[in-house]
């Protein structure tokens, strides 16, 4: 843990000292482009609904822009703030997040409204958990590897958070937290057999779910044969595939999507990628996919180049988490995964996720910045 890092710092906020002190430029570029695509797509996919419901085609665009602004502030703050300071306080956001999760569990609503903006505690819990675990794992690297105790501690924390989110109920978000936690454990060097041992009890649980709650099971796997129930369980999958497929090579052009006219519900949130495919065609959609790959590749590169274990785990787990979101969302849009309610990072309309993702990117960039900084003493 570095003692004094920067000469010019006020309350932990540091200011760039030299040209060399900046984040990965391609990483920044990919985020900026994805956010720009997001602005366009949110407007294109929401103006009809906004006009119908609020008589204002810019309703969702305005709100999206406001969140983007907040997200940018969070991003800058995380970027400027030396990430090593996070270690000192990392437990506090986690505790607050868990309290909030319990709070929403009691009140029964998934949202907390702060000054007119609704926040989803599960989003923040995800970041807080990863930050804390990155800190803990880097601090107790040996303990983690030598005995199952450390592993069990981490697993318990992950399971508590996952369980709380699942109880909201928000299954898909819970699964994402679990997967991100597992990815972090893998990266931190936990023995494989621990992981396998922990995974074993999941099998009977999954089997039980398949039998006891077969209707839910069927619903989840309806994406494999959406035509079996085209107006019910398969509806989203079918409509999403129609949107994607009808785009063909070049797409219909900006604003020309027909599926957003209520054929594809939540077209500005969970199915924004389908609308993108419809309007921009294969070329546009493939470019966005490449942007995500660029983002992911640069993010992993930052993690690999991190100067310490904490930075490595922090950047790695956050990047993985965002990549999982992108994969699952796009997989759903293409009819390859069960329908979930997960937003597409940077592009979907959805306040909390956008803000937390930008916050996470700020942190990753912070790690990147310090990779480039001169050797610390």
């Amino acid at each position, binding site marked *: 843990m570095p003692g004094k890092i920067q000469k010019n710092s006020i309350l932990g906020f540091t200011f760039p000292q030299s040209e060399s002190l900046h984040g990965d430029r391609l990483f920044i570029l990919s985020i900026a482009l994805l956010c720009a695509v997001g602005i366009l797509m949110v407007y294109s996919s929401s103006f009809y609904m906004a006009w119908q419901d609020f008589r204002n085609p810019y309703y969702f665009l305005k709100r999206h822009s406001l969140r983007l602004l907040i997200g940018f502030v969070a991003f800058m703050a995380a970027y400027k703030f030396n990430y090593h300071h996070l270690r000192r306080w990392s437990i506090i956001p986690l505790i607050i997040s868990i309290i909030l999760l319990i709070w929403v569990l009691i009140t029964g609503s998934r949202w907390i409204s702060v000054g007119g903006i609704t926040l989803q505690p599960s989003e923040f819990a995800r970041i807080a958990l990863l930050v804390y675990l990155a800190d803990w794992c880097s601090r107790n690297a040996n303990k983690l590897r030598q005995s199952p105790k450390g592993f069990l501690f981490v697993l318990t924390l992950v399971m508590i958070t996952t369980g709380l989110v699942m109880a909201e109920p928000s299954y898909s978000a819970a699964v994402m937290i679990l997967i991100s936690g597992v990815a972090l454990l893998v990266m931190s060097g936990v023995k494989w057999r621990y992981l396998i041992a922990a995974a074993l009890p999941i099998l009977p649980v999954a089997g039980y779910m398949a039998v006891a709650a077969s209707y839910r099971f069927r619903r989840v796997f309806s994406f494999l044969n959406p035509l079996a129930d085209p107006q019910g369980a398969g509806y989203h999958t079918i409509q999403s595939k129609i949107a994607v497929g009808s*785009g063909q090579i070049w797409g219909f052009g900006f604003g020309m999507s027909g599926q957003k006219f209520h054929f594809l519900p939540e077209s500005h949130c969970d199915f924004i990628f389908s609308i993108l495919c419809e309007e921009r065609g294969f070329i546009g959609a493939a470019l966005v996919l490449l942007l995500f790959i660029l983002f992911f590749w640069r993010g992993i590169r930052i993690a690999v180049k991190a100067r310490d*274990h904490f930075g490595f785990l922090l950047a790695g787990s956050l990047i993985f988490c965002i990549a999982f979101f992108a994969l699952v969302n796009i997989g759903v849009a293409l009819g390859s995964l069960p329908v979930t309610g997960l937003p597409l990072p940077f592009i979907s309309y959805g306040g909390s996720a956008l803000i937390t993702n930008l916050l996470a990117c700020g942190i990753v960039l912070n790690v990147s910045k310090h990779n480039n900084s001169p050797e610390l003493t």
Partner: protein
Amino acid sequence: MTARKKSNGRKSRRKVHKNVSKRYVWRMRILAFTIIVLFFVLGGRLFQLQIVDGQKYAQIARRQHIRKVKLESRRGSIVDRAGQEIALDHPQYFTCGVRPAQLKSAGTLCTELAAFTSRPASHYQRRLQSHSPFVYLEWRLTASQADRLQSLGMNGMNLKKTSGRFYPFYRATSQLLGYTDVDGSGIAGLEVQCDEALQGEKGWEIHQRDARGVSIWDPLRSYAQPRDGGTVRLSIDILSQEILHDALIQVQEKYQANWAGGVLLNPKTGEILAISSVPDFDPIRPEIGPLANHKLKPITDLFEPGSVFKVVAATAALEKGIVCLDDSIFCENGSYRIGRKRLKDTHEYGWLTFEDVIVYSSNIGMAKVAEKLGSKEIYRFAARYGFGTPTGIDFPGENSGRLRPYDKWKDIDRANIAMGQGIAANMLQLALAFGAIANDGILMEPRLVLDRTDMKGNHRSYPPREVRRVMEPETARQLRQVLIKCVDEGTGKNAALDGSAVAGKTGTAQVPDLIKGGYYDDRFVSSFAGFITDGKEDRLLVITVCEPQEEHFASQVAAPVFKKVMQRLQPADVIRKTWKPNPIELADVSGGIGKMVSLPDRNIDLKWLRGPALSDISELAREDESIEQTEVLLPDLRGISIREATRILTSYGITVEIDGSGWIVKQSFKPGTSLIKCSTCRLKAKPL
């Protein structure tokens, strides 16, 4: 490498961290590699959906995004000879639909509607029990009725302004014009006869739609303009029509007659100026009231004409030179035997000249002339006058009458037919026959449509057409003389007009008993056929009153109607000269029926006529019809002869298409189908 570093891992914390991270970088690389592979898998999937199957999905998308929207066209107008619109499409009606689930006080609504339409409230109650979420309760509600319903402030009720057929002259033209169905296709009367010309062509527009069915702008929009229907100009003079209709209403009410009908035509051209019968019906709600009222009886109904038919035998006798007008005939003092039957005259006559036989309408005198003449000649002249064959008028459901072949006539039949019993004709045939007398012996083809323009702008006019010469001009002149004397001195005195010489003939016929055979003693049809030939205005009018009560002699019942109509027509001529057709402005339409028509202005003109006010639309609209609604259903025609089936169907105004011959084995509409639904019925027949 990792094992060595692990051994000195605790030297400095930073170094340890660094080494630890490096040691597990490979794990991260595997994870990262997996993720990137997954991204490329998604890229492949994208390729499959968009490039490989793209066409298929694009087609599905197009199917669900695009909708063809129909653009309504306006049905053409029917105008009278001066160009006055008498049937037109007007966006003035309201359709009342409800969502039964949301409707709270259904009972109130039903009683309100029942008050407007004379349907029973239970009719609406039954409709409300439908399981569909939206039910149409009533159409063609007027603006004031719609206002009334709106003021009830009901949830779940929807009033939609719709275009509908509008008949400014309401009942006066109801049977002539007929009516249309909800879709604007002609169902009866001229509406169906001229359907081809009146029908417009619907246009369409391609719209993009959302999943809830709302149409949205579409950059791909393509469309076809709707085409409005053409115009049909009738020979009808609407003023005369109203005058005639009004007179018929009065006579029917006065004598409580079964029905009364009249035909006014121009004998020189065959143009029908007015044609009407009562009781009539409400063209806005044709489904209310008996279906028999829909028939334009002067064309669709037969009756035995009685003494008016004597002119046929008289023509034959004069043409053949069998008798002259001055020849005397002994009328047997009122009683004469033919075979086992006995003929009677109303007055007992001795010797009468042939002229007086007609003037005083002696049956015995006529029978004796017929004896001399022979059946064949009477038949020939009846046929030449056009009896027994369709007149060829442009109107659906003409009944061509009955004239049996002369070789089947017995002696008594010959005598009866000479005096107009035992044959059946429609009023139009009678009118045209008299027209031949007025027109120097030439029978004209009747005309109802002067010209028509269809939606493509094709114009077609129908000039006057002669059918044939029935008699020599000299004979016609002689007959006119006799008929003038008929009115001056004989049975037609009540039809005499001041200042014009009227030629006419009365006829009082007994009604045949179709069940037992023979004739009823107490049921009569009294007719008057007459014309004015003063050179200025040629008019021929036939009035028939069927089964009048109390009085039955044509001289008392029918002749005064003739006089009244003719009297009122004379000042109407003056009005007509200064009259311009009144275009019915679409912009005028705001109020109910009573408010919008230009009729009130017209009635000011018509006050000159000093008759009772002409049919005031708002008055009639309020008139209470207590006739219960009888839905007439298509009968089972199977097993009956083609002729009988045709007669039944044409009497309902249904066009018949026949396949085969003999007896009916199949009908295109099932028995029990509402007659409103079938305009053409296809029948299949087989010989037994």
